[in-house]
């Protein structure tokens, strides 16, 4: 529960990598069996060809609903395919393993297999398969409401603390439980107090985990600024502020007391006036100090990708393993200079990166180093590998 981040250890950093990828009946892919070369993989093809679907397939190997947050049956190939399945051989700090995910026949449920055996433990899966992604849906991340930014931050936290997702889910369930009590007018003070004590305990753990991550990211970004623009991060919220000058146990008491005092108000609003579900992640351009929301679209994308790369580096330093990066259409809003910076940053980082775009010219900076897969209508129609990447 919100334990301290592991000590930085100088062990050699592994890069988690997919070595072989197989798909069946997923979106517009009937079948795929791909031996994945070392180095960046660039998916090129027209809109609707299946580039994002392929990235989504990869994202399903990590816990959660994937980069489009799709329900299991939405992923079946139309009109007559399914149930879908993704299987991959991965190599990382835990050695080589096979992860397979698919929809259970006749059910709106996924089955996960690790080396052929059912894997139910989401925390274990988060430990094994860490992925970070950027999608066009995040283009408005800095303009949108704080909920999306919290979700984004929680995904990052999960790649360092495998239990974080369960903690957040528990916290949300406790809040719903309290809301039901208040809505029904059941003012059982002992019941409410018991719930508020748990909400405070879990909520403070969630806030502390987020806060630690933001501090670590800020430090990592400042210590080693990469070719991509840097960001300055801050968490804005009452609980985070309290954590600055008081120990966690005291903050728990304070949050529980604040919740007890806001029962009347919360009964009317249906929510809870206090807690880390009201916090926000503030992002600024480190160079100009400008809020990210005020920057140009291209700059925003560069800030976001820069943040993901910093986080990937941080995970490498803390856990000895770099996550896999899925970068969907990230170069679309970048100019030549930024695209070159991205190529340089990816090379310096050394994580396995999957990129996509409609125009091969957008990836000229990766020529000779990346594998270019030309995608059309759910198939690979061109496969161009750098000479050194023979496997």
């Amino acid at each position, binding site marked *: 529960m919100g334990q301290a981040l592991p000590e930085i250890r100088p062990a050699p950093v592994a890069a988690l990598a997919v070595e072989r990828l197989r798909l069946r009946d997923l979106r517009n892919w009937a079948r795929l069996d791909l031996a994945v070369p070392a180095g960046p993989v660039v998916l090129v093809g027209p809109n609707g060809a299946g580039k994002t679907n392929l990235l989504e397939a990869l994202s399903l190997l990590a816990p959660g609903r994937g980069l489009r947050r799709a329900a299991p049956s939405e992923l079946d190939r139309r009109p007559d395919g399914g149930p879908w399945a993704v299987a991959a051989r991965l190599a990382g700090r835990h050695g080589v393993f096979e992860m397979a995910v698919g929809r259970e026949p006749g059910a709106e449920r996924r089955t996960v297999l690790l080396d052929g055996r059912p894997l139910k433990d989401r925390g274990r899966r988060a430990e094994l398969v860490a992925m970070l992604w950027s999608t066009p849906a995040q283009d408005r991340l800095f303009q949108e409401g704080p909920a999306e930014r919290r979700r984004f931050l929680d995904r990052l936290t999960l790649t360092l603390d495998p239990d974080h997702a369960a903690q957040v889910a*528990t916290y949300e*369930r*406790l809040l*719903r*439980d*309290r809301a*039901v*009590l208040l809505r*029904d007018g*059941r003012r*059982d003070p*002992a*019941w409410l*107090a*018991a*719930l508020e*004590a*748990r909400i405070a305990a*879990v909520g403070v753990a969630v806030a502390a985990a987020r806060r630690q991550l933001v501090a670590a990211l800020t430090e990592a970004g400042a210590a080693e600024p990469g070719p991509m623009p840097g960001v300055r991060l801050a968490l804005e919220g009452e609980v985070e502020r309290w954590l600055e000058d008081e120990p966690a146990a005291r903050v728990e008491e304070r949050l529980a007391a604040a919740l007890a005092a806001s029962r009347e108000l919360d009964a009317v609003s249906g929510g809870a006036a206090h807690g880390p579900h009201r916090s926000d992640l503030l992002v600024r351009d480190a160079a100009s100090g400008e809020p990210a929301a005020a920057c140009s679209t291209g700059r925003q994308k560069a800030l976001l990708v820069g943040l993901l790369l910093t986080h990937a580096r941080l995970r490498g330093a803390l856990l000895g393993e770099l996550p896999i990066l899925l970068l969907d259409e990230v170069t679309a809003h970048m100019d030549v200079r930024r695209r070159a910076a991205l190529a340089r940053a990816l090379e310096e980082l050394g994580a396995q990166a999957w990129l996509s775009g409609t125009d091969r010219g957008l990836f000229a900076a990766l020529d000779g180093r990346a594998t270019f897969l030309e995608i059309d209508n759910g198939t690979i129609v061109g496969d161009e590998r750098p000479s050194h990447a023979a496997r």
Partner: protein
Amino acid sequence: MAAAPIEELVRLLAKLPGLGPRSARRAALALLRRPDTLLAPLLAALEVCARNVRRCSVCGNLDTTDPCAICADPDRDPDLVLVVEQVEDLWAMERAGAFRGRYHVLGGTLSALDAVGPEELGVERLLRRVAERPRIEVVLALSATVAGQTTAHYLAERLKPTGARITRLGYGLPVGGELNYLDEGTLAAALAGRRPVG
């Protein structure tokens, strides 16, 4: 497709915990293949249970008598009550053989979302029992899950005004662990190492 009565048997068996449709079909076939040695004795056992087993009106345990054998046993300490979530937990404690007091079986944990409140858990019944015995000790032996801990917190709050001694099980309980998964030695140690609440 099997005959309708067999399908009905499979459908009912599949409602049992730990049995999915596939294992329910296997269980049904096992019964039907051994009508004399398995099916008939099971039917008889089910009938006896359906007719005779009831919830103890004192503690919530399942038994053929009311009060249950534990509540009626004069050798069991009436001033020591162990509060557990489920009858399985009571069974686990009894298997361990380390407890000589009595029980209160909640039958669940508080959850407004699932409409399980203090009435469903028999909390008033417990409070009345405690009020009758000034020297009583109540041991909260709920699971280390969030729901278990919320419920334990609630019970401690409600019991405080009675002046009863309130304790909880000691070390050795795994986080998220449930009593009925613990071995007997761990249960005995947790009981011996119980600590005051609050």
